[in-house]
């Protein structure tokens, strides 16, 4: 009962938000003469045969893995009131360099994959680190600089792909890097379907699922059970209190952005190692921005982010079926966008309701829903535009 009361408000807000978002997007669709019920029917239709259904699930989980990592990367920064909007550029640049590095070297199996991962993590962390350095040394708002770094990263990636890293023959319709050899490709997990007695789908379930799960657990432990995680949360909730208790605010900014970037480097790898084996012009894009949405929906907690990633992946799966059924497939983006907006509003209302009931003294003292880190994304107590933020820590 106590657990339920504690979880209640935390769960209620996102669920309510999703429902409200569905209602709003239905209204938008209806206003534009698209039948929302037909659209939702297509979204829920996983096919008739067991193979089709399992395939649909595999597609969803495969999509959820990078979304989860993206959400995690954004959430780490959010927890301390930092906006890492540059996840998009970080993972795209990291993936292309990792793809080129992976194709250039030849090592025994697991080691090869490890090197590719390491390259991706380092590149993305460095890219995010630049944003952090600009913030702590020059006082540039990380919001603006990470957005600009996105454009620079995408430009660089397109230059690298068409220039030095080009592996596809001249005149090919899709330009790509050279293919990563077999030793650097990650095997799928389809064995578990046989073990569970399910139909074996034609698609491979990404082996990266295991790595993503490990990363999720490590980050959760790091954020909730270590000194570093406590300092990070404290800096997010009250920078002045944190620095009074001996936390070096500038070092914290750099460390947090490096960690956020490191996780961001992994985002492109499930697709790269498990499916495409090379970076192409049409490599999965937009995960960084979706990661912001996923982090908000998941209230910056690894478990919440996992569920949010699954929800977004479920919505994304509908893209192709909607196109086949001749519906505007961009309704998916509309639903996702409205969910984000509804979630941040709902979180804010939930926070206010919780505080009011806490003030009345009706809630159990320890049972108050989380404030700050669970509010509307970044910690509430830090105004994102406060003097500390844009003008920076020059002191």
């Amino acid at each position, binding site marked *: 009962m106590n657990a339920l009361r504690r979880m209640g408000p935390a769960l209620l807000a996102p669920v309510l938000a999703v429902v409200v978002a569905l209602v709003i997007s239905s209204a938008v669709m209806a206003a*534009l003469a*698209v039948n929302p019920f037909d659209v939702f029917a297509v979204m829920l239709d996983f096919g008739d045969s067991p193979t089709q259904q399992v395939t649909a699930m595999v597609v969803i989980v495969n999509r959820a893995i990078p979304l989860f990592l993206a959400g995690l990367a954004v959430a780490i920064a959010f927890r301390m009131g930092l*906006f890492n*909007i540059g996840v998009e550029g970080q993972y795209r640049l990291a993936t292309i360099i990792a793809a080129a590095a992976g194709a250039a070297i030849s090592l025994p199996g697991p080691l090869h994959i490890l090197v590719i991962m390491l390259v991706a993590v380092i590149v993305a962390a460095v890219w995010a680190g630049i944003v952090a350095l*600009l913030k702590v040394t*020059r*006082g*540039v*708002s990380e*919001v*603006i*600089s990470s*957005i*600009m*770094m*996105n*454009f*620079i990263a995408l*430009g*660089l990636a*397109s*230059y*690298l*792909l*068409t*220039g030095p890293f080009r592996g596809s023959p001249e005149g090919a319709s899709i330009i790509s890097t050279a293919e990563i050899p077999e030793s650097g490709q990650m095997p799928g997990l389809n064995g578990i379907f046989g073990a569970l007695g399910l139909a074996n789908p034609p698609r491979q379930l990404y082996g990266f699922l295991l790595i993503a799960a490990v990363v999720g657990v490590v980050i959760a432990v790091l954020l909730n059970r270590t000194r570093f995680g406590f300092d990070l949360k404290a800096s997010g909730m009250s920078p002045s209190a944190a620095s009074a208790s001996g936390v070096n605010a500038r070092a914290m900014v750099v460390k947090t952005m490096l960690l956020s970037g490191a996780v961001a480097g992994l985002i492109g790898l499930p697709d790269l190692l498990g499916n495409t084996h090379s970076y192409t012009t049409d490599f999965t894009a937009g995960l960084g*921005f*979706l990661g*912001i*949405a996923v982090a*908000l929906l998941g209230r910056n907690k690894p478990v919440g982010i996992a569920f949010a990633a699954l929800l977004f992946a479920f919505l994304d799966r509908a893209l192709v079926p909607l196109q086949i059924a001749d519906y*505007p*497939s*961009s*309704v*998916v*983006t*509309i639903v*996702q*966008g*409205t969910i*984000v*907006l509804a979630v*941040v*509003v709902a979180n*804010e*209302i939930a926070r*206010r309701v919780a505080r009011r009931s806490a003030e009345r003294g009706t809630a159990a003292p320890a049972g108050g829903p989380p404030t700050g880190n669970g*509010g*509307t*994304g*970044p910690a509430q107590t830090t*105004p*994102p*535009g*406060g*003097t500390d933020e*844009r*003008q920076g820590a*020059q002191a």
Partner: protein
Amino acid sequence: MSTAVSAPETRPSRGPLTDLLTGGGPVRRALWLALAGLALFSIVRAVSGEEALTSSSTMSAALLLAVPIGLAGLGGLFSERAGVVNIGLEGMMILGTWGAGFAGYQWGWGAALVGGVLFGALGGLLHALATVTFGVDHVVSGVAINILAAGLARFLSELFYTDNPAGGGVTQSPPVSSKPPSFSLPVLSSGPDLLGDLEQKHWFLLSDLAGIARGVTSGVAIVTVLAVLLVPATYLLLWRTAFGLRLRSCGENPAAADSLGVPVYRFKYIAVIISGGLAGLGGVFLVFIAGIYRENQTNGRGFIGLASLIFGNWRPGGLAAGAGLFGFSDALQLRSRSAVVALLLLVAVLLAVLAVRQFLRHQLLVGGIAAVVAVAAFVGFLTIDELPPGIVSFTPHLTTLLVLSLASQRLRMPAADGLVYRRGEN
């Protein structure tokens, strides 16, 4: 430009030369700065032989591209002066481009203006609803609006432009049915075209000046001139009227404003809706440039507008200077890939000056970094003939980043900018 300057007459004299250069307040100093910049450009142009650097065609493109950035920045100015951070400018601009394309292909350029402003203002209304009424974190709401706007534009295009007999498709509208009227200054820029002649002489300084003057007076749309006039108009509205004072008071100290009877929530709503309308208007100008709505037309210009607002220290004049700078670098990368290389020389010179200054102040680390980068830029200028398209494409963004990291030291944002204001809680 900068508001933080104390009254000049209270300063002791620092010698006749310094007084001549820096006396007379911010206006005189800005003039000197502009002149120095022009001379620098002229030198770089003469040394590198890249006539595109100050040619009238680059300048007119720079004006065209600076206007959307400046309008987005003005939008940001209204909203942030009322205390609401507006990262959603990009999304509102996207909505503006879509609205302009939709109204423009059916009813011409006038309707495109109205449509773009209306759509942008709708985005602003949404932002105001989330941040003012529901008290959502401003950046979060802005990010959500950016995601939503991109999706909405795609959705509406899919709905209205596929199978449209007038043309268009999933990512673009049918062409706008009429162009806004434009004019050239008689004698100077058309007919005898005196400025054009002077520009072709490639004389030091004079030809550069002529190129700039011809660029902004030849074939300029009247709406562009009106848009530029919005900068002084905004200054007058925000700093010389009671309305402006009240609006700014909401951004500096909303609780005090409230206690004096200013309807803070209403002012914030008005400011953010105007902000969206201006960002949408910026989108309209992008549509005018292309003659068509295209997906990703904004290409981050809303964000660059926001950066120009920060660069301009939350003042209209500085904002316009920033927009001009970013518009120029944007125009340069669109017009000439080799001219961008000449920019490297410019960067090298500026960083060398910075390095010397830092060394004189015994800031060895910063000076050292600046010197190394300056040398690298100079080597780049000497060795690179033409940059590949991928690299050139981010010239304006890199410029933005460089300028912000070099200049964002003595800025003062509105005191309550980004704070969620709840009546009775503060």
